[in-house]
């Protein structure tokens, strides 16, 4: 690990102004950043510690939604009574990720910025990586790509977005609140992440010095929700495919539905096409199958991950079945 400056601001304003210099990084739970620093993948010159900022509250909003501070730990959010009651898909997603120890450290804001587990990205000796060293090439395309993305990839990067929480947040249409040198703004989660294109090192819309302060989750369209994560082993593994479903069913018909997928995209993957297929239709296996086909229509597998196309479809179908039951 290289030497770095360590700042410990007392206010959000101070944090933002401290972090606007080049090479600065915010540190929250540190469960990704410290790893990557030890691996020399991240080499910040300054760490701005946001752990003491007053951003750890979960509050109900007048509109029935929920405001979640950026520093709310994954464990606290997963077991929050309102989350368990109204946003079960989020609780399930959080608890399917990592391990209890990591969830006790990892934060809401940090998880929105979780970086890929692509082994070529995480190892500076593992050959070129456009995300780590822009313009050098992608080692995963012709390498070990079993766990890589099949949606949203480019010729420059096929790294999978690793988060579970963000997939549930996407299905819940969360709004991300940001504070930066130019003031405050909010961005819908579906506009927050960027596709890799030819700039895979730019993963989201955050500008230098911008800090996620909190997330607002609007009232869910239904409490019929489910998060399903499929992977090789039963715990402590990133998704090979996952699906978050929130479905409003009326008289056996799907009034409206939100579907997001994880483990298959270069970003949390909202499946609008699948939602369109289902809206107004009876909640039947045939329609679930059609929705799954629509969700994966643009999939582009590589040498080792063609199975993810089928697996993701089955994941969506089962999640729809459980959520609409």
């Amino acid at each position: 690990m290289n030497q770095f400056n360590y700042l410990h601001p007392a206010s959000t304003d101070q944090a933002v102004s401290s972090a606007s210099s080049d090479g600065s990084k915010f540190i929250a739970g540190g469960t990704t950043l410290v790893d990557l620093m030890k691996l020399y993948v991240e080499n910040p010159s300054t760490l701005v510690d946001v752990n003491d900022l007053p951003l750890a509250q979960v509050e109900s909003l007048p509109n029935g939604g929920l405001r979640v501070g950026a520093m709310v730990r994954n464990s606290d959010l997963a077991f929050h009574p309102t989350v368990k009651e109204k946003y079960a898909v989020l609780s399930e997603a959080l608890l399917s990720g990592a391990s209890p120890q990591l969830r006790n450290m990892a934060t809401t804001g940090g998880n929105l910025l979780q970086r890929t587990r692509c082994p070529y990205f995480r190892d500076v000796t593992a050959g070129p990586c456009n995300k780590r060293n822009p313009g050098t090439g992608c080692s995963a395309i012709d390498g070990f790509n079993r766990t890589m993305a099949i949606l949203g990839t480019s010729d420059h990067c096929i790294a999978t977005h690793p988060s579970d929480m963000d997939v549930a947040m996407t299905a819940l249409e969360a709004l991300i609140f940001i504070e930066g040198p130019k003031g405050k703004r909010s961005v819908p989660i579906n506009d927050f992440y960027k596709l890799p294109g030819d700039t895979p090192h730019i993963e989201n819309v955050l500008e230098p010095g911008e800090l996620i302060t909190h997330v607002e989750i609007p009232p869910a369209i239904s409490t019929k929700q489910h998060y399903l994560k499929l992977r090789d082993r039963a715990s402590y593994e990133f998704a090979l495919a996952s699906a978050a479903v929130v479905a409003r069913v009326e008289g056996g018909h799907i009034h409206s539905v939100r579907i997001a997928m994880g483990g298959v995209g270069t970003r949390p993957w909202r499946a609008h096409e699948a939602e369109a297929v289902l809206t107004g239709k009876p909640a039947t296996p045939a329609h679930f199958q059609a929705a799954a086909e629509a969700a994966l229509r643009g999939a582009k597998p590589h040498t080792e991950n063609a199975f993810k196309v089928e697996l993701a479809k089955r994941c969506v179908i089962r999640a729809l079945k459980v959520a609409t039951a």
Partner: protein
Amino acid sequence: MANGAMDDASLNTATTSIIGAAVPRIDGPFKATGTAQYTADFHFPNLVHAVPVQSTIANGTIRKLDTAKAESMPGVLLVLHKDNIGKLYRVIPNDFSATSSEARPPFEDTRIFYWGQYVAVVIAETLEQATAAAKAVQVEYDSAPASLKPSLADYAGKRKSVSKRGDVNKAYEEAPVKVDQLYVTPVETHNPIEMHASVAVWDGDNVTLYETTQGVWNAKLAMAQILGIPSENVQIITKYLGSGFGGKLFPWPHSAMAAVAAKRLNRPVKLSVNRRMMFSNVGHRPRCEQQMKIGATKDGKLVALRQDYLNHTSFIDDIDEGCGECTPYLYSVPNLEVTSALVQRNTGTPSPMRGPGAVPGLFAMESAMDEMAIALNIDPVELRLRNEPEKDESTGQKFSSRHLKECLETGREKFGWSKRNPAIGSMRGTGSQAGKILGWGMAAASWGAFRFGANASVELCPNGRVCVRSATQDIGTGTYTIFAQVLHDKIGVPLDRIDVFLGDTAHPEGAMSGGSWATASCIPSLVMACDNAKRTLLRLAVETEGSPHHNHDAAKLELTSGFVHPSDQPYHQGIPFEEIIRIARVSGVTGQGRTVSTFEDPKAKDFSLHSYSAVFVEVEWEPDIARLRVSRVVSVIDGGKIINRKAAANQIMGAVVMGVGMGLLEETRYDQRNGQPINGSMADYLVATCPDSPTIDVTFLDYPDLVMNEYGARGVGEIGLAGVAPAITAAVYHATGIRVRELPVRIEDLLKSNIREA
């Protein structure tokens, strides 16, 4: 029982004996409280840290190695590499007096044989400084094309005949029912929780190496050869091991790097191998490709068995995995041949991994037997029972104690096998398994029984305590406790008055912790040392003036629960042994003991010595999402007399969990361009986690094998793993209709099942 030459259940030690009891580990409290010092925990004044620099190519030579920048960095004391490491030597090859894991000492020349090979080592005041400077060493290579292809199928060279009888090819051709399949097991990496480490401390010409080794005595002899110094100048200490699975049997190059650095700097040096390095530098189970041909009569009698296996090895060492370990004696078959060959790849040197040879070999053998059972339409348990041999057909020897039939029959009963419907995908779960398809599979397994030379010294101390010393080590499975149990059994003092000193070459040469032989090897030396100490004590009791037993007949005295007393009187009417020591004015009474290996024991030569097991596995399967988990395992072990029921059951349970990893998860992947183990971390290389662990039912048949030692113990380190993977793939086939012949079973395989709904 039919084949047991010397065993008899009535010889089982009485249940009140400490031998066979579920004694909690005497070292448990130290481990639970964190006071047990593992190798990397040793710290000394002025200690400095070594961090290796690793090759980033898999084949070629070092063109230029520039250490200037690293040497100028804060805290850096020394950078060792091929130009300044000085003279290091190879251990004499194929000489069983000492063994190293990798023939080549560190930095022997400029050649690179595998990704991650050490090319330099940086020593600095702190670990962080050494890590940063290691990154700053600039290495330029002349890279050559590397041989990295996983498949070994294009091998066309010679094969060695490992075992042969009858005319297998003719018998196979003529057999009415045949199975001919290729079975593949991938590279697996040992992942003991404790990573390798070496802490080197010199005192003049003498070096103490704190090592993570499964064999302190071998490490002493091997390190002396590598360093070119007399073996009496080398002391090896391994107080506790966080397991090794075979990867820590013999020294790896990092130990010599630490030793040379410490000598050069005249300061203690610590070198910890990190998890990523564990995947490239300290061994692995090689990939094995085994073509199995079995021929049988229609009523299920085997007539031909042919196993042609390949395994990969490094360009540095020829390591034969030995997949034919169990094939020649497991079943009765008149015509058999096993052949082997090695295929070189640009990887590090493979090393034994829990059940070397037998574990991949039995995956092939038992998978083929399952396929044969299906081809014959005979129950797979029944097929094994029909082919039980009367003797070891490869050597003609009698079995010392073979109870495979009872393992199969007991397992069948405990598992509820009679309720099995053999039709694929036909069985449904109930209760918590409702909505899931169940698959049931089984396999038989075996592992050799060995007893190696070992020594122990037992001391009756003036403070009433009893000490035992031996330069063996506790790999983590309970050797400390087993020593204490034997001493308690022989001397009678309570466990809390027994001190066991292991893991230090200052003690008499002991056994290696490998091959499931530590317990069997240690017992005779312990028993003999206790007997000798006792004899001397009783002699002092009758010869020493002032002793209450003075001038009595020593043959009529006994030592019971620490009291010396006439045989015809209760022990508490005698006197404590420490009183005899005090009256005799001696510092204590010692006894030495020595074990003769089975290879040198004329009595053992008449016998085929093996452990056996039967494994029954249930998988639960959700076809719509291709989710498969192992839910239940019954393991029946014929491992001789069990010394510590608790520690032994713990080993078998751990082995079952390891088998779940082997069956469903584990595979080391090398990038085909640069040879890097690309999944070299505990997040990316998948082992079974707690939620992956099934319900495990362990049964020990507990027949003493008295050829091995007076208790009849054999050892249970590897037998628990041997049958798990083929039982899993048999269960997977039963549930899904998918026969996986290349491990691990993956979701990719399961998605091909025609069964889509439970």
